[in-house]
């Protein structure tokens, strides 16, 4: 995380106490229970969490593309000084696709099967630079494809999405996102659906691109290894809350929250051969069930009574890190 002691607006995005609730037939679902995090300028933040952590909902909140059954959205999302939450939809639309861009797990959600790749890219370009001439737009589109490692760019420009392989589509989606020249790029599990060797290619691409890309990236994944390799900072989520955040190498080398530690212990390659595999007993909290106290308490091996009285605040810890555990120092 960027140094909080410096000017408070040095982070590109400052999310404070974000609460998201939605109504379901079984009751109110608490999807985000007061999330606070910063996305540093020019940094890549990895948001890690398992099912029910709320990490994808977090991305939806940043784009303000919210589920229709949403009942409550409170807190603040300060994007370069502007709070996004109270913005009317018309203003928000200007932000999306201009200052914030997103790449998804399934590229087909961003690609219209009726339009060629060229059309997609030129559309994005024209939105960013209205009145751009056709030939200039085409040149830039071509260059964009080359920059994401697509050989035969001319051939691919004329192709339709269904004619491309999964990896190729993902590259096109990345190209589209970069053409927006956004301040913030959201990537929601962009490689999860890809084959391992293709995933390696895309990860490699992202690694190269981040050096050329001046904006910030929020990389959402359930894969700790990927985040360890690609990201600068990490934010670990559980049950709709942020449990720990900080520089990725530090957090993963010396986790301070019991959940982070347990999660790392479950990674198979980290365990010695021959012993029994570790898992975290119990299940993720049902978002509908009412819950008081730390969300991880039912499964935590360090739990105390005090843990159940209220959600532990995300407080500063040494080395630009934050932890949401009242016993963080004791356990370390």
């Amino acid at each position: 995380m960027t140094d909080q002691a410096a000017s408070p607006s040095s982070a590109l995005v400052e999310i404070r106490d974000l609460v998201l609730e939605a109504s379901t037939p079984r009751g109110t679902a608490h999807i985000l229970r007061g999330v606070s995090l910063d996305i540093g300028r020019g940094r890549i933040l990895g948001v890690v969490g398992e099912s029910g952590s709320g990490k994808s909902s977090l991305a939806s909140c940043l784009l303000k593309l919210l589920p229709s059954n949403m009942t409550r959205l409170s807190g603040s999302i300060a994007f370069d000084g502007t709070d996004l939450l109270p913005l009317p939809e018309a203003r928000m639309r200007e932000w999306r696709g201009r200052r914030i861009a997103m790449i998804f797990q399934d590229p087909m959600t961003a690609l219209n099967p009726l339009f060629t790749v060229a059309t997609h890219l030129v559309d994005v370009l024209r939105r960013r630079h209205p009145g751009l001439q056709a030939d200039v737009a085409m040149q830039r589109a071509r260059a964009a494809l080359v920059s994401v490692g697509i050989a035969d760019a001319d051939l691919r420009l004329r192709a339709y999405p269904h004619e491309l392989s999964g990896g190729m589509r993902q590259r096109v989606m990345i190209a589209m996102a970069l053409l927006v020249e956004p301040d913030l790029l959201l990537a929601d599990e962009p490689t999860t659906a890809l084959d391992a060797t293709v995933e390696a290619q895309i990860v490699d691409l992202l690694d190269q691109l981040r050096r050329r890309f001046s904006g910030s990236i929020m990389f959402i994944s359930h894969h700790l290894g990927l985040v360890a390799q690609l990201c600068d900072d990490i934010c670990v989520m559980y049950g709709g809350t942020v449990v720990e955040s900080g520089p990725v190498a530090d957090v993963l080398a010396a986790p301070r929250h019991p959940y982070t530690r347990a999660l790392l212990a479950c990674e198979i390659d980290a365990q010695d051969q021959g012993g029994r595999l570790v898992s975290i007993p119990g299940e993720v909290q049902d978002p509908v069930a009412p819950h008081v106290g730390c969300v991880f308490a039912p499964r935590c091996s360090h739990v105390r009574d005090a843990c159940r009285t209220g959600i532990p605040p995300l407080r500063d810890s040494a080395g630009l890190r934050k932890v949401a555990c009242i016993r963080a120092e004791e356990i370390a």
Partner: protein
Amino acid sequence: MTPAQPVSVPSGIGAARAGLVSAPLVSMRGISVVFGGAVRALDDVSLDIADKEIVGLVGESGSGKTTLCRVLVGLTQASTGTVEVGGAAVAAQLARDPLAFRRKVQMLLQDAVASLSPRMTVGRSLREPIAIHNLPQQESLARLDTILRRLGLPPDVLAKFPHQISGGQARRVGVARALVMQPQLIVADEPTAGLDVSVQGELLNLLLDLQQEFGLTYLLVSHNLNVIRRVTQRTAVMYLGQIVEEAPTRQLFDRPAHPYSAALLSTNPVIDPQHRRTRIVLQGEIPSVVNPPSGCRFHTRCPVAQPRCSSEPPPLVAIAMKRAVRCHFPYSLDLQR
């Protein structure tokens, strides 16, 4: 195209004839599967699985690993080649006594929740095998009860519907359903897919325990290399319908011989920076199964391909005790640790 010489090296027929080991439980020889005359999903694949062994199958899209599983359990017919389980051909067993075969060979599908009939309660689904095979009621229900407790499934799960239970529970229900028939061989297709990291350890421990207790044999398909490395004893790596390498798991991961295996294993992102290997990033896309490359199918993406690789398809050849590689120049992509 010259057919590769099928060689099944690990616990192979050679070893069996030498009287060193008993005949394998599963013996697949020269399996080819062609769909619609054009898609060669499997091309001359041979694989043996010894009794009580855990074999891993690794590969990406188009590798044919799912098709191989389906051939083994009798869901898909092989165009050529033989599949034997317990010494008898699968096709013959299915013709003669299909129920007996089904009791012997079971498969866990990738999507555990979708494997359960959506309008049947879990309890009803669990009793399906008992009804289908006309198993003795009391005995089977008692066994089912024991299994459920062993798997840690709470009794209230029986009244629930598939969409109401978690992925992990659904997976365990699938295992219970298979175990009630006391199978010999279980084919597990991506057993940890969709499971959170925090719960997959529990499931894997369970599968290993069950293997010990019931003397099961497993064929485990997974794209999660950590799972393969940890759980399996021997692994086969597949690419575009062929087995390109077969080795004891530890040896495969320590020093893969085939360039594709080396690249695949290197893609596994490692958290600890000290243990990171250089990542081998392959060029190009996975070729289409309809029109595989000439010669060695991997040569179009191989970082160390030579002229011979594009013209001459390499046979699967033994390179050490229990190791086989389909490559003209094995170990040419040796990774620095």
